[in-house]
């Protein structure tokens, strides 16, 4: 799908991103060369296990990494503008304005010392140059939009006075108040209960349509992906394993890792679960070949030695797996993954 990347339709385009962290033990290679794009108005899901690099890649784009991070990319563009070489100061114009982020734990991402009102008006006054009164008015209106009852009262409250679900609503209110073009939600519902998760997902869907935003949803929950996203990127070991339209990922799976994730979910037939055995690789010394080779039930000697490239296997559907190589297919026969 490389040709769509040059489309005017592309909002965020990341080419060949590498992110590493220098630690006492050495360089941890968290993201090892991934390319991701998001189209205007699209919901992209990034799914993968903890430590697969899904959050780090988004934080890299936003220049929100810790000091010990090393970053390299061929290009990061947002709406045609380069983000890669922006200074920290220049990036602030984007953060919370054109691109907003929602994090997993609303308690730690809200500042406990400031009222909800102060925290929502802050980005409005900074980015939209609104006056205090206008900002407060807008804040109340946004709070109402995200389904917080009695917004005038809430504006004066502190984060600890709200429940977990309410806090996440406030986070969404802060994220959308400046009318962003892209919303990055990093495990927005992982800390919440299912009934609250349902509320928040419904709200995000509504807000996305109302504000005509693009959405990047980072999660480990395939259920959330299935109900929210139109396109999916599956990451593992700092690399993209598979990407494609939602239904292709679920019904025409092209990678054993995706298959493993789908099989790990209990069906309602009480059959024994099919887990992925073993443990994800340590990205301090990532394996030479495919990172999933050691846990893959289809693995060949080839996989351990050589890294497969992301290859088109269907319309907009790409997979990095040697099973799609013609000579492998000829020898082993077509392996059915879905």
């Amino acid at each position, binding site marked *: 799908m490389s040709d769509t990347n040059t489309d005017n339709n592309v909002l965020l385009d990341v080419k060949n991103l590498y992110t590493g962290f220098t630690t006492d033990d050495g360089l941890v290679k968290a993201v090892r060369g991934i390319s991701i794009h998001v189209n205007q108005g699209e919901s992209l899901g990034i799914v993968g296990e903890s430590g697969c690099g899904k959050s780090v890649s988004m934080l890299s784009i936003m220049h929100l990494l810790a000091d010990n991070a090393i970053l390299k990319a061929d290009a990061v563009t947002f709406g045609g503008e380069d983000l890669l070489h922006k200074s920290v100061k220049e990036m602030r114009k984007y953060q919370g304005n054109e691109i907003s982020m929602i994090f997993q734990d609303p308690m730690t991402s809200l500042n406990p010392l400031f009222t909800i009102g102060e925290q929502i008006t802050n980005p409005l006054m900074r980015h939209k140059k609104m006056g205090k009164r206008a900002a407060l008015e807008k804040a109340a209106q946004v709070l109402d939009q995200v389904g917080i009852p009695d917004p005038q009262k809430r504006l004066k409250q502190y984060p600890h006075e709200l429940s977990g679900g309410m806090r996440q609503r406030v986070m969404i209110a802060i994220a959308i108040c400046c009318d962003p073009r892209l919303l990055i939600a990093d495990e927005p519902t992982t800390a919440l209960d*299912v009934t*609250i998760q349902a509320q928040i997902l419904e709200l995000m869907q509504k807000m996305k349509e109302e504000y005509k935003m693009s959405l990047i949803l980072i999660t480990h*929950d*395939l*259920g959330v992906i299935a109900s929210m996203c139109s396109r999916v990127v599956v990451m593992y070991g700092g690399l993209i394993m598979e990407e494609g339209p939602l239904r292709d990922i679920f019904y025409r799976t092209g990678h054993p890792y995706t298959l493993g994730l789908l099989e790990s979910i209990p069906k*309602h037939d009480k059959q024994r679960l099919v*887990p992925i055995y073993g443990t994800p690789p340590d990205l301090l010394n990532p394996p030479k070949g495919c990172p999933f080779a050691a846990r893959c039930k289809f693995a060949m000697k080839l996989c351990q030695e050589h890294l497969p490239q992301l290859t088109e296997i269907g319309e907009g559907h790409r997979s990095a797996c040697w099973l799609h190589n013609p000579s492998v297919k000829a020898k082993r026969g077509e392996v059915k993954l879905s």
Partner: protein
Amino acid sequence: MSISSTKENCLEIQNLKKYFEIKAGFLKKPNILKAVDDVSFSIARGETMGLVGESGCGKTTIGRTVLKLYEPTDGKILYCGEDITNLDDKQMISYRKKIQMIFQDPYTSLDPRMNVAHIIAEPIRFMHLMEGKDIMDRVRELVELVGLKQDHLNRYPHEFSGGQRQRIGIARALAAEPEFIVCDEPISALDVSIQAQIINILEDLQSKFNFTYLFISHDLAMVRHISNQVGVMYLGNLVEYAEVEELYENMMHPYTKALISAEPAADPDKAEASQRIVLQGDVPSPINPAPGCPFRSRCQYAKEICGSVKSDLKKINDKHYVACHLFE
């Protein structure tokens, strides 16, 4: 009302209550947090009871009270027919051999300053199950039982991944040679691919040693997979209790319906087709709860009576009990 089965009961709790006092301030009457309010159920030997509900519904408190980590406020806990409600710590030791626990968070439930061998050997040492060299032999055996290697024994918890740590936690629980294990959200902190590993280990152990499990979780699909009976809790109350298929096929309580429909299906077609019941509002505070049905504030079917009288669990059929005024 008590739920009793014809099979041999391993654990039975009767009208269990656990209230916590929350200090309201100097010389003020403390507030009462009703974490568990009059819950009864029983689990037959070799079976698994799933306990589901949202955070703060009291499911973890039940698990801990069963192990007497918390003193029950009222009610009875019977283990194999014997009343263990009022035993003190010393008398409990002989039961702690039989009742063990797997904790939710594999990162905080293992002492970071101890190596794996010490962690697993702890119950053996302190319950005086073995002496000397036998302890290490037993530890090696346990480590292999959960699929870890012997050269892991000298390592410290922080060196392991979440799934590996949870297996260390399981090995520690097995060390006491228990009969009954409280699994307190054993998979909720783990990645999807690892969750299935842990569930399979638990199932293998159950068929090998005829363990009885109390499986506490908020993951409805996993509970359906592993349980024989399921209890649904809301705000300290057991609102529905049934055989697993009966519950998932024929759920009755409005809360159970909402809970099950809220769980997103990992299947785009089903997700599109499903009519999700989105509950409005938050779970009310369990501190000084108002009389009546705990769920009425979010229930679309709430009637006048729900505001004043709390419904008891009522028998619908042999396999199904529900606490709701709609079914009277």
